[in-house]
């Protein structure tokens, strides 16, 4: 929560980044596709965790910004030929701006109303994606065309992989710096106790709005990554089911911790694939399985997998209670 990010901590990211360029050379295209999807979910999940796990704001608008990022990037490319390298930041900033706009009234509300208002907003955006046919292609969806990234054409999973990897590593690094910063501490303080935070000089509303904006930017970037991983965008992808999926990822993995979120993303992205190979009619079981995972996690592992693991590890470190106080 404080200090600087050491090179030792950045090292795994650098390794991943290099891997992004070398792995596609000897990996099956299907696994690369899975990887692209996983990396997109990673960015999406980290964004949601920043808002829910760090700042403690229980809000449901995330998928709206995800969709916004996706449609913006795709449409900028299709209608204006704007390459990904320019389109993605525009989409991310647009998502962030809308996030801030939504946050300004939303942060005045008590927890439960915040959840409902943001839920209403997300469903409203879903309706827009579904109904605004001339622009978004409506429920039939939008065909995504291959994009231009810094000169070379991204048209399949192989070429998309290093781009996705670079983006994911960038967003993870940003999250690491954020978590060890003054702003990161402000967010955690708000989560733990708003009025003590206020008496420590933290402008609670402003910090909440910033947290919303940052979270929306992450969702926007994930939306842009969607256009790399998939060739088709439909509103279904940005609806309530996805919201629950991402929530399950951070709950199962461990809200509020980067390693936890990554674990949750890994398990839940791979789950559909694992289930598909073991159960013939997985589609029918999907919802039941997700629901059970969510309930069982929250019952038996409320701090997620990572929380349980690090809880056991930390037990060794408590100093003697007999040490003198004042």
């Amino acid at each position: 929560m404080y200090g600087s990010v050491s090179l030792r901590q950045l090292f795994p990211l650098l390794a991943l980044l290099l891997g992004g360029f070398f792995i596609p050379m000897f990996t099956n295209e299907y696994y690369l596709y899975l990887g692209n999807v996983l990396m997109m979910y990673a960015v999406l999940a980290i964004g949601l965790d920043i808002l829910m796990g760090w700042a403690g704001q229980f809000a449901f608008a995330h998928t709206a910004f995800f969709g916004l990022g996706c449609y913006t990037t795709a449409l900028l490319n299709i209608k204006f030929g704007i390459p990904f390298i320019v389109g993605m930041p525009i989409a991310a900033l647009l998502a962030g701006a809308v996030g801030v706009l939504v946050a300004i009234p939303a942060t005045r509300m008590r927890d439960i109303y915040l959840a409902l208002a943001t839920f209403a907003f997300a469903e409203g955006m879903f309706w827009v994606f579904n109904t605004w046919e001339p622009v978004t292609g409506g429920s039939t969806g939008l065909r995504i065309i291959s994009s231009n990234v810094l000169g070379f054409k991204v048209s399949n999973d192989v070429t998309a992989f290093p781009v996705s990897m670079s983006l994911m590593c960038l967003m993870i690094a940003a999250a690491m710096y954020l978590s060890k910063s003054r702003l990161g501490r402000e967010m955690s303080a708000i989560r733990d106790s708003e009025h003590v935070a206020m008496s420590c000089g933290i402008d609670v509303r402003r910090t909440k709005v910033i947290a919303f904006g940052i979270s929306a930017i992450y969702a926007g970037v994930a939306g842009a990554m969607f256009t790399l991983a998939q060739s088709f965008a439909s509103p279904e992808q940005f609806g309530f089911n996805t919201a629950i999926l991402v929530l399950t990822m951070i709950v199962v993995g461990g809200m509020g911790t980067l390693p936890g979120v990554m674990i949750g993303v890994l398990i839940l992205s791979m789950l559909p694939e694992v289930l598909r190979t073991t159960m013939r009619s997985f589609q029918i079981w999907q919802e039941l399985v997700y629901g059970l995972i969510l309930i069982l996690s929250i019952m038996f592992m409320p701090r997620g997998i990572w929380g349980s693991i690090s809880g056991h590890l930390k037990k060794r470190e408590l100093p003697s209670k007999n040490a003198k106080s004042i």
Partner: protein
Amino acid sequence: MGKPFFEITNLSIRFGGLLALDNFSMTLDSGAIHALIGPNGAGKSTVFNCISRFYDPSMGDIFFEGKSILAHPPHAISTLGIARTFQNIELFASMTVLENVLVGMMPKVPRYLGFVPGLRRNSIEHHAVERAEALLERSGLADFRNIPAAELDFGRQKTLDVIRALASEPKLLVMDEPAAGLRNREIAALDKLLVDLVKSEGVTILLVEHVMQLVMSVADKITVLNQGVKIAEGSPAQVKTDPAVIQAYLGKGAHA
């Protein structure tokens, strides 16, 4: 003489039909320890919540160093130089001891872009951590720096609450029942701490307290509240024998 260091004038606040504070006035001198006492429900915490700007008074004003604080939102109060501890020790439960102190220090830590690496950022963080460590060292909590605040024992949590408030280098420290739940040995230590703070740091202290042992020992001046109204004010000796005060406590008396 100039303007008083801290002054509350004609403060009144109403909750629904209840007049919680009625024309309450009080003055603090710089460098003194001032206690606010009264039976339960007298309105003492209400005064504090007005100072913290959690409540808006219906009437009256609060002046700090000559300027009204009512124009400011709650988060500006600590930047002005007023820090506060809380009655039920509200700490940042999931954050570590060191992180709690860092948050307390927030008004003194300059802003920077949170997710961008840089030399200025590193040096700001480094200095902040150094100062936090020094504070922990002085108060004996250094060994606990990485323990989540919720896992500390009660006495240490109280200490942490005070350290957190002091981290912003306040001119006025407002303490809500600092001695509640402490044992005699710890109360004596708290006594010494408060006197030290005034002598060496020049902090002015306003405290709400029920533990009379501490109040009588440490306070320079005492104000007594009962049902929203000030009924007495003066030195400990004066207040102890004031008939209105004894009456308010209904003969239960102070456990000296």
